[in-house]
């Protein structure tokens, strides 16, 4: 059974690993192949700071909150393992700041030590009158994606540097023997494989600086301007990320001087000591924004061929945050495909 995963960002690679871990023992003929035109360090995931934090509100989307929790718990479990450093995984504490009181987020009991800020803490952040403190996780993709790639390579998964133009292409029109299942993890460019008006780019830009005295993440929120359009500072293991840009519908992947100015001025106002920080890089990327994540099966037919497609895209600015829960859900969908093809039965209860 051949399975093609299209996309090699955090979603594609983790979904591939999850499927292989769960099913290679059950399906001896299982062959996984990853197809992507961009690999680490050139994926959208690589540009993200890597902070685990969902949006402020899940808009009633309990499913996504559960996937976020699954991801957090999975990563937390790996913290003490020798792999943590190689994965780019570590604990980090920090602040979310608001100009007015807000309801507690859906993730308050997922993270560690969630509490409101005290008046003295708020003195650190003039202009903000309310906030949260909690301990969360960082998962730096420039380490995590190579780690996933190594695990996959050890398992015999093959990688192809290729832009897939259509589902048909992989599922049999061109190949002598097509794949049986396609996992669509194409992120912001999923619309090129199948039109999806719900999917829009949420353009972001970040400045990378050296500011090793910053030990906390600081995320400000401006309810009016929307998520990520207010300054944030996220310290990583090698550099600190300054951001605060979210432009819906903007496909431009070039850095903008205006956005640089916005980020720099706003972050320096937030943390005056940043004025002395050395700038070491700048990056723009397109968050694959969607009202909710598209995680579902579809049977794609054309001519004599048909293929089962599992869509797993549209994770906006919370891909790292939700990735493992989605990978597990995609693996469950894969399991149902196997059942239908009678290639594997569900685990039998022990008598």
């Amino acid at each position: 059974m051949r399975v093609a995963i299209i996309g090699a960002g955090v979603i594609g690679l983790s979904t591939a690993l999850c499927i292989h871990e769960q099913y290679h023992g059950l399906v001896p003929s299982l062959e996984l192949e990853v197809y992507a035109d961009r690999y680490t360090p050139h994926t959208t995931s690589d540009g993200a700071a890597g902070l685990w934090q969902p949006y402020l509100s899940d808009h009633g989307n309990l499913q996504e909150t559960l996937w976020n929790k699954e991801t957090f718990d999975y990563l937390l479990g790996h913290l003490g393992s020798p792999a943590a450093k190689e994965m780019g995984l570590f604990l980090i504490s920090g602040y979310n700041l608001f100009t007015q009181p807000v309801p507690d987020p859906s993730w308050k009991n997922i993270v560690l030590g969630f509490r409101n800020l005290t008046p003295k803490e708020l003195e650190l952040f003039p202009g903000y009158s309310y906030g949260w403190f909690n301990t969360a996780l960082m998962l730096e993709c420039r380490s995590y994606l190579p780690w996933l790639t190594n695990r996959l390579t050890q398992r015999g998964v093959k990688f192809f540097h290729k832009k897939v133009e259509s589902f048909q292409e992989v599922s049999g029109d061109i190949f002598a023997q097509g794949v049986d299942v396609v996992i669509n993890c194409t992120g912001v460019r999923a619309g090129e494989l199948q039109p999806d008006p719900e999917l829009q780019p949420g353009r972001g830009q970040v400045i990378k600086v050296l500011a090793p005295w910053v030990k906390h993440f600081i995320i400000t929120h401006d309810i009016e301007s929307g998520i990520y359009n207010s300054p944030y500072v996220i310290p990583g293991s090698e550099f600190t990320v300054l951001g605060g840009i979210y432009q819906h519908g903007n496909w431009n992947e070039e850095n903008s001087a205006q956005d640089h100015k916005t980020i720099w001025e706003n972050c320096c106002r937030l943390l005056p000591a940043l004025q002395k920080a050395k700038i070491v890089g700048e990056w723009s990327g397109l968050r694959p924004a969607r009202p909710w994540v598209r995680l579902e099966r579809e049977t794609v037919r054309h001519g004599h061929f048909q293929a089962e497609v599992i869509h797993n895209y549209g994770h906006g600015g919370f891909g790292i945050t939700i990735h493992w829960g989605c990978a597990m859900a995609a693996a469950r969908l894969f399991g149902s495909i196997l059942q239908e093809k009678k290639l594997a039965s569900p685990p039998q209860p022990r008598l």
Partner: protein
Amino acid sequence: MAAPKVAVVGAGVIGLSTALCIAETCPSCSVTVLSDQFSPNTTSDVAAGMLIPHTYPGTPIHVQKQWFTETFAYLFAISNSAEASEAGIHLVSGWQVFKTTPKEELPFWSDVVLGFRPMSEAELQKFPQHRFGQAFTTLKCDCPPYLLWLEKRLKASGVQMYTRKVADLWDLHSEYNIVVNCAGIGAHQLVGDEKLFPVRGQVLKVHAPWVKNFIRDGDGLTYIYPGIRRVTLGGTREKESWSLSPDPSTTKDIFDRCCSLEPSLRGAQDIKVKVGLRPSRWCVRLQREVLSQGGVKLPVVHNYGHGAGGFSVHRGTAKEAAHLVGECLAALQGSSSRAKL
């Protein structure tokens, strides 16, 4: 008295901050710092510089709390300013964990640090050998940056600094009107204080930039303090040991203890070992004394014996020492005007 001359002996955190306070409160004074060691070779340079107080058995708690509160407020303002990175002052959050629940669940400083609260069950799961813990946010003074920043402020205030080993405070009586003794562990020999004793501390300074939170065992022996460039791993508390040589088996022991609190430290790089002698005393000696020989008097202000808590109270004790210098000055000016009658 024209431009009273004040000598401050010692250039660790106590000496430099005391000299700065004197320069601030007595602009007419000419202040000079004399020390055989300057940063990076002082005891202060070995310390992590965490603002977590050490309790002195012989000093009233309300006084210690006043010192800590003043020091915390002073550094808090710097950490919030554009000078923070140069001064080496930054906020750090973390956990103090206990294997057995402490007698005192609320230390005297719990309302001075930020966000102090007991750890949740979920947080404690990260520390399977510990049953109780406290989470809070405090400040860290990285050295050498903080000491170098103090030296810069001193120079800007016109304070001179000289490398000089002072063997006897009396040696300074002809050049200075007042002497301030911030010699730390050096006071044992300098003024023959038998109540002052070293508590030897060995630490490792390692490269582990993914460690963003501090972890401290409530027994004070094992701690992980992330600084700007290095993480300080500790430590030891060896009373009456005067050895400044790193001990290799101690290094391994410290490393193992810290790795059991934070397993990812196994990947730490570039391990540097340092030793410092905490200038320990039942209480901080913060008092005036008048030395006299053959009718000549030399007012002295002592400010030493801060043990494991120097950084935590440095600004508070420096201000009190500066106040005592003011009293010495008033006494000198009083007696000189009496002499004119």
